[in-house]
């Protein structure tokens, strides 16, 4: 089991990192030929950073758009964030203060995340217009995240595993050493699904996490009259002009 999971995690990490890097490179290289911020938009770079921060941290536009969804989204994402920060302990030799500080809130993170996921899923059944736009891949991600949460929570509550050994395994992977992984079925499920999530990530709508930073309607300054904005391919069209 140890070897299989070691290989799985190396593969998953490679796909995740390479896939994301390729996508981010693509988003960087494809130019934005025109100024299209959704106005009113900030006039300065600092203003754009602040606008983007509001979008990422408090989902500002979603708040304007749909209050119940905003609550569900906040439950899920902040729960997830809490869980992930707590998980950082598996990857650091000595646990740093913020991660240590959040350790007591493990179950809350899981509960918030699970509640969020459940409500997000319920919307997709109950609201006809959301059901209409929902496809199998949308369900796949929700179910995948739920199963990761359930398996994690199960370990936390009753199907306990040797987390010291899990940590040793993970740190070992990071140092290219093989250390034994506890042979618990729930842990195997948890880790297998996490690896699957990492592999899917760069090929799915989870690209919204890096993608939001590249959205021209949100990351452009509103200064087209003051500064001429011309991308490379558009500049070529200028060549013929007087």
């Amino acid at each position, binding site marked *: 089991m140890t070897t299989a999971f070691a290989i799985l995690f190396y593969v998953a990490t490679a796909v995740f990192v390479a896939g994301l890097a390729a*996508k981010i490179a*693509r*988003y960087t290289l*494809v*130019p*934005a*030929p*025109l*100024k*299209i911020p*959704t*106005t*009113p*938009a*900030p*006039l300065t770079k600092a203003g754009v950073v602040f606008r983007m921060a509001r*979008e990422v941290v408090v*989902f500002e*536009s*979603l708040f*304007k*758009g*749909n209050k119940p*969804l905003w609550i569900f*989204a906040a439950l899920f994402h902040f729960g997830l964030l809490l869980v992930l920060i707590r998980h950082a302990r598996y990857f650091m030799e000595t646990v740093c203060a913020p991660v240590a500080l959040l350790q007591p809130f493990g179950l809350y993170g899981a509960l918030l995340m699970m509640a969020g996921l459940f409500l997000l899923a319920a919307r997709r059944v109950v*609201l*006809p*217009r*959301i059901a*209409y*736009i*929902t*496809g*199998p*891949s*949308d369900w*796949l991600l929700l179910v995948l995240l739920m199963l990761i949460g359930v398996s994690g929570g199960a370990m936390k509550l009753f199907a306990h595993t040797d987390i010291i050994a899990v940590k040793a395994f993970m740190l070992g992977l990071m140092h290219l050493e093989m250390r034994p992984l506890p042979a618990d079925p729930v842990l195997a499920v948890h880790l297998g699904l996490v690896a699957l999530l990492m592999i899917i990530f760069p*090929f*799915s*709508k989870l*690209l*919204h996490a890096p*993608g*939001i930073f*590249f*959205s*021209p*309607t*949100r990351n452009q300054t*509103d200064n*087209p*009259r003051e*500064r*001429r*904005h*011309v991308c490379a*391919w*558009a500049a070529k*069209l200028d060549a013929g*002009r007087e």
Partner: protein
Amino acid sequence: MAEKFETPVLGDPTERPMPVLIPGATADLKSYVAAPAHNEALGFPAQLVEDWKPKAIGLMGDLLSRYRSLQVFMDICVKCGACTDKCHYFIGTGDPKNMPVARQDLFRSIYRRYFTPAGKLVPGLVGAKELTRETLDEWFNYFHQCSQCRRCSVFCPYGIDTAEVSMAAREMLDQLGYGQKYCNEIIGKVHKIGNNLGLPPAALADTIEGLEEDIEAETGCAVKLPIDVEGAEVLLVTPSADFFAEPHVLGLIGYAKVFHQAGISWTLSTKASEAGNFGMFIGNYAQMKKIATRIHEAARELKVKRIVFGECGHAWRVAYSFLNTLVGPWDFLDPRYPVPQHILEVTNGLIANGGIKLDRSGNDNMVLAFHDSCNVARGARMGDRPGGQFVIPREVIKASVPKLVEMCPDTTHEKTFCCGGGGGLLTDELLEIRVKGAKPRMEALKQVVDSQGVTHMASLCAICKAQFTKILPYYGYDREMVVSVHQLVSNAIIMGNND
């Protein structure tokens, strides 16, 4: 008006119920397909090309590599549905394909099939679809039922702008020889004659002479509407509707009076006798640039120092946001003024510094509402602060009329609804979707008419004005209820020697 469709019943704009889904409700609402002559004039294939399939995929790949918006938007939509109930065409028709995300998905399903690993491996899982002849028909219908108003992009957590997707789809259709008659015919007229309405120089001169006589008869002042005058300070570029019909013309008279009273020398241009730039509607950069080039040339030939745009929404988006990019730099103009300026920026500045004087009694008994035009609200700005596009028109209206009333906040400022006729939909064969798409605006208008005695609604866009003039009667209102902002200025401005 014996129409084949029913005008929507207006409800309370503050508690708009979720529309019931009616799949296929507008599936047969099709604009006219462009004729070979319309297409060829713009350098597009005369009709749908034989090898449309490989060509379409090639075109899509090209657009994805040239427009970051399109590439990013195709990937990052999470199907959260925050946009679903934000489109006036969905609200008015209930057709689920008029929900912004579903409209995007018409494009995205093809993108996934041909440009993503998941779509190639497991198409059924990720909603990837084969490109077929039917796909093109569906695109033609539904991407011409989007007025590119960007309302959906305000509420999307990632700012996904369906207008960008519509533009890309229309660009592809045009390059395949399957364009829309309305847009392509109009662009042809701009190239051939100089403006969207196809008014030749002689007709323009006639109209202008008539207007000068009217103004003099009304005010006793010899207000001129100069055309092609070299060495004028300002080149005014205005939508050709301003030369053609009410209430647009009344706005043009307003601009003329403002320049006259402020003592600013100005000129119109026959070459640039159109502010609108339909190149944006069809998502074609080269066309947009070509149309904008006329303005650059006219400004050079007439040796003006400033460029001012008349009242037009989508024209102002292209002017404000794109003009510098398309045909800048404008270093031969007076650097003290932004290029271009909006006529409302000019008028508002003159009101503030006493350059013109207004008397509200000129608009006695009028209670105004103001319709924020979508492309001004969400695609441009006025003045030097974010949101100036909301403040400046209101300041000017308040200085001109006794009373200005705000409509329901869900329908104004950045949340404003499109009039229903924008983005290349202002054509008779689309009347049904235009009437239905106007529903949210009409609801908000009805509310202030009933509760606050609003008599008129001001607009600063040629398309909005034309659209409302046409559809107001369907909702039981007078077509003359919609007025130009500068029509109000025109009624209020004190002419003659003000000292």
